[in-house]
């Protein structure tokens, strides 16, 4: 077999395998990456709950309504009538916090300029977190002070672009400040260097995230390789 024929045969094998797997049409491909992200968000949701329970074993996690968790593909405000959430309580006690998926929070720069909550496109006035642990009873977009822990879930190799995105989100969540206690932040023993003392977690399915953790402690971020 000549070299050219061999390469052509292998190209055919690649194309045929993909066609058998996914079909030739492009329409079905739309949203496939969204599904990848949602599956990994579920993995991170489990990790978040497990970490909180390890720190405080008496915590109870209860779905607010229905029998299934719904992960939103599109970020937005907290919608208490349209979406279920996970209530966090200590035993039978009242709700201490709530877990929501794909929630936009108001940017620190927006809140400190005293502007009203944005309607329609938020542009730079709000930013999405894949998962949030917030104070209970909120509606709409939480302010930075409402966030107990935010989670960024990345099921793709970690690179400089994702780090810049993470640091930008952190900049709009909290000022760098003197260490303050956040009882939910399982990785923080001496307090988080943040005002407000929110925690930010970046989980990535790829080990390359460990190459980018130099700034994490300084900003009170927990960056970890979390395989799917």
């Amino acid at each position, binding site marked *: 077999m000549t070299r050219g024929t061999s390469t052509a045969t292998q190209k055919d094998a690649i*194309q045929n395998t993909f066609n058998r*797997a996914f079909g030739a049409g492009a329409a079905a491909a739309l949203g496939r990456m969204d599904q990848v992200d949602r*599956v990994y968000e579920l993995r991170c949701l489990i990790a978040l709950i497990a970490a909180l329970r390890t720190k405080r074993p008496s915590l109870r996690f*209860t779905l607010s309504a229905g029998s299934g968790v719904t992960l939103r*593909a599109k970020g937005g405000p907290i919608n208490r009538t349209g979406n279920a959430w996970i209530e966090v309580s200590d035993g039978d006690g009242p709700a201490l916090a709530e877990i929501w998926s794909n929630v936009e929070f108001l940017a620190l720069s927006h809140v400190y300029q005293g502007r009203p909550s944005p309607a329609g496109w938020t542009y730079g006035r709000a930013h999405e977190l894949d998962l949030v642990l917030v104070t209970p009873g909120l509606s709409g977009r939480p302010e930075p002070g409402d966030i107990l822990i935010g989670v960024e879930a990345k*099921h793709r*190799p970690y690179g400089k672009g994702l780090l810049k995105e993470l640091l930008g989100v952190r900049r709009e969540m909290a000022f760098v400040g003197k260490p303050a206690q956040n009882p939910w932040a399982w990785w923080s023993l001496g307090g988080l260097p943040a005002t407000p003392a929110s925690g930010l977690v970046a989980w990535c399915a790829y080990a*390359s995230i460990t*190459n980018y953790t130099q700034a994490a402690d300084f900003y009170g971020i927990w960056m970890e390789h979390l*395989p799917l």
Partner: protein
Amino acid sequence: MAETDDDWRELFETYRFEVVRAGFAAWDEAAFADDDPDEEPVAWDDFRKPVFIDLGDDRPGHVSERFERYAKRFVKLLACLEAQSVDRLVRDLGELVRTRDGEPVATVLVQNADGEAEPLGIRYRHEGLVAEFQALNETLFSPGDPEPLITPVPA
């Protein structure tokens, strides 16, 4: 098996094009850029076909090594999206989260951009798909040490 770097480059382009066409463009961009952290993401022409401006290394064999890492990662990605992997995650969630009635949470849905709920994960067109991609890799690359497709999740 391909012999020259040009052959490998052509096969890698084909593979990446199919990955993008299958709906994994964001993963492709990150997976390609990650191989060399200082490299800018690949540019795309009007036909959404990868344009390899610079693979960053002229060392012989570099293209094939890079292609192999990319292809193995893609198979791992597919394995993670299999129904059985998703079902395992849902069971894990049910161990931690209960309904108001005290029952384990049994389903996880995705609310798409139109507000409609749909099942989580990708239901592939046929069973054995991941094995088929593994077989493809074996025909493309020299056999090496087998790698686990899914890293076990600690209990």
